[in-house]
């Protein structure tokens, strides 16, 4: 078996190989389930029936799709600029913190409150990512800095809810008081799908696709990402582009955090309860979409199914919830490994 480089892989090839790598990942996971002592058929049928099979399941998928879509679309942009943001989780949490702070402590007239909550959420996430962009100017690798900032964000949330922001009426629990009603998002009746955030997510994904493909900034971003030497030559400031990219990708994650607290929890609570690892799962969403924000409209629900399905496995088959990490990990590995098949043609058989 030999690899022969392709001049330029077609979109169809990229799509097919992406699907194939997901299929391989599901097959590998099936093998793991066999060793775990569960029938893979039962696992997959449970997941599908419980997510796409009924309206409750669909709503669960929808709830998880919202943050994945927002963070994934932002990460798609970041990856195109070669800004490897692994800190979606921390940026989501900072978005939640800024949103909660606004909802709890800033007295605003009702109609202004929710927009302000979202704006502050975006600001919180954006500023958190900005730290990594500024550190990058000092040659600090953003993979490390964004990853480490996640842990600081968790600690910050814990500090706030156990300390200065701890609710007055919550006794031994550590979380804040509930938000005023004006700061709570409407949901689709009977579900936890806070639809305004979903609409926002769709708008962000489409908007970022436009930004990437049609705007002058998107052009500069691609030059910086694809050839920093040419960016320097043409007088495009990589540092400035990175700053804006960080604000976008962090801001999108911050919006997701604001949506989670204003749409579902209505208070700031422990980090592990606000986010189910959305920041990390969104990396796969962006990767599956091959850096196209609009394609996250497809890939985010796919990963939403896996997250929601993982919940069902826990309840119905008594498997640990961490099984979703197995899914995510195997899918990401298969996707990364599939790059070689995207860029090369495979020739089977002995050498000529």
């Amino acid at each position: 078996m030999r690899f022969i480089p392709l001049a330029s892989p077609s979109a169809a090839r990229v799509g097919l190989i992406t699907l194939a790598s997901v299929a391989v990942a599901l097959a590998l996971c099936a093998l793991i389930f066999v060793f775990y002592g569960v029938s893979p058929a039962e696992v997959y049928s449970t997941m599908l029936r419980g997510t796409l099979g009924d309206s409750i399941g669909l709503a669960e998928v929808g709830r998880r799709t919202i943050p994945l879509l927002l963070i994934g679309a932002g990460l798609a942009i970041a990856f195109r600029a070669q800004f490897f943001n692994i800190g979606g989780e921390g940026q989501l949490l900072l978005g939640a913190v800024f949103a909660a702070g606004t909802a709890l402590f800033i007295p605003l007239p009702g109609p202004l409150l929710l927009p302000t909550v979202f704006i502050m959420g975006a600001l919180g996430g954006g500023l958190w990512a900005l730290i990594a962009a500024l550190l990058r100017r000092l040659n600090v690798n953003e993979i490390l800095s964004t990853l480490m900032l996640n842990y600081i964000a968790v600690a910050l949330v814990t500090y706030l809810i156990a300390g200065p922001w701890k609710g007055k009426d919550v006794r031994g629990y550590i979380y804040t008081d509930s938000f005023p009603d004006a700061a709570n998002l409407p949901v689709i009746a009977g579900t936890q799908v806070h639809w305004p955030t979903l609409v926002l997510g769709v708008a962000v994904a489409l908007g970022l696709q436009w930004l990437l493909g049609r705007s002058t900034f998107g052009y500069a971003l691609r030059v910086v990402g694809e050839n920093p030497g040419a960016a320097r030559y043409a007088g495009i400031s990589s540092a400035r582009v990175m700053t804006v990219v960080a604000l976008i990708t962090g801001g999108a994650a911050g919006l997701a955090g604001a949506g989670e607290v204003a749409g579902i929890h209505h208070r700031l609570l422990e980090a592990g309860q606000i986010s189910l690892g959305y920041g990390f799962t969104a990396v796969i969403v962006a990767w599956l979409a091959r850096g196209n924000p609009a394609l996250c409209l497809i890939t985010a629900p796919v990963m939403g199914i896996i997250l929601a399905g993982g919940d069902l496995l826990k309840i119905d088959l008594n498997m640990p919830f961490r099984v979703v990490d197995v899914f995510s990990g195997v899918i990401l590995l298969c996707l990364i490994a599939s790059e070689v098949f995207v860029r090369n043609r495979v020739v089977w058989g002995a050498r000529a």
Partner: protein
Amino acid sequence: MTQPQPASSRPPALELRGITKRFPGVVANDSVDLTVDGGEVLALLGENGAGKSTLISILYGLYQPDEGTVSLGGQPVRIGSPAEARKLGIGLVPQHPLLVSRHSVAENLALGGGQASRGGGLFPARGVAGRVRELSEKYGLEVDPTARVSDLSPGEKQRVEIIRALLGGARVLILDEPTSVLTPQEASGLFRVMRELRADGRSLIFISHKLDEVLDVADRVTVLRRGRVVGGVPTAGATRESLAELMVGRGVDFTRKRGAALARGEVLLDVQNLTASGSRGLPALRGVGFTLGRGEVLGVAGIAGNGQSELVEVLAGLHPARGTITLDGQPLTGGAEARFQGGVAHIPEDRIHSGTVPSMTVADNLALRGYGRSPLARGLARDLKATDERARQDVEHYSVATPGIHTPSRLLSGGNIQKLILARELHGQPKLILAVHPTYGLDIGATDQVHRVLLERTNEGAGVLLVSEDLDELLSLSDRIGVMVGGELRGPFPVSEVTRESLGLLMGGAHPHSIPGAGQGVVA
């Protein structure tokens, strides 16, 4: 060209018969025949895209031929991989050295050295050092085995690659454009080594664009054109003109492309006392000053690393400096974008890593300078129609050979990438054109076009600062030539007062006044 050997004589060291290699849409090699004897240097000559690289890749086991046979010493062989090629005694000295720069020379040679590294136990580099010294002495390949590769000059790195091939037992040595990274002095050192290797009975295949070198060092020349062997001649009796004609299939005149040197007109660019630091903080420019007239071509010669790159970068707004620069009476300030808009075009040294974005389309690459402004943008949005329209015009006007304007520029040949850059940089009417090695690696046809375009612009009043390593190019285009040595500019001298020889001495650091003919008419 490659007549079958008489049955009585020894079979050639290497023989290719009817080698054909097809790629989608292209026949890269079309029944190529080629032989090299022991103790012979064969030059492989051809324009870009003539099929030289493919042929080398087949010899080194990177590609398999679709048809044809390769024989070594009369025995047909199958070369399935570079490892097999090395086992068969075929060594490749790559154009750009493939060495681990943080490791020592000996460590690099021990890496994958096989036999060569035996005797050192857990420290293979120690075993190699002795063999390296042996080879160094035998062939005049001076290299310190304990030196770090990052401290070596390009010429020394190349010697390490040659030693690596010899350690691997190479009887047939392929040198892929070995002089492209060397100074003239280093190149003549390389030729001495090549002659030693030939005297030792080894076979050498030498790939070069430079006809003088081919005539100097090779015994025979095989010329490829469009994948076919179009000629094979002994170098004895061949001339530059005859080889060039074989290569391009028509006569090429080597006379001066520019008419008489321009009478000095109105000053366009005035540079005074420019000082700048290089990338490692060492002074790269030490008080450089010169003027450039309207319609003038000022050539800048020099061995790489003497401040030419920094001079261009400073003028293009990519590198900070102290001193004054005025263009057309106005101080030249600001970043790269502002200077381009102010009329400074820049044909960069590295057309792949800075001149273009290889993954982007031809149309997007042509928009690299104007993407953010009218007419290619309206507000924050790009005007993709206008971008495509300009691309179509540029591609046609500069006859860029590309399957389409939405093809990634990575798929274009070097000459067409350079035409793309020219089209983009010369859009509008630049006053000053900074051209750095504008024809490096280009075939004669593309070189001609680049030269013609640059000279056309001088007729329209633009000034050209031409930095080149090719003295023939400088002598054929420039009105005056300066030489960069250690961050200082010697000259510029009117082109009538310099020769290849006097420029070579200046590049080596000789003082102008000590060189007959180079001292008069000094402007700076």
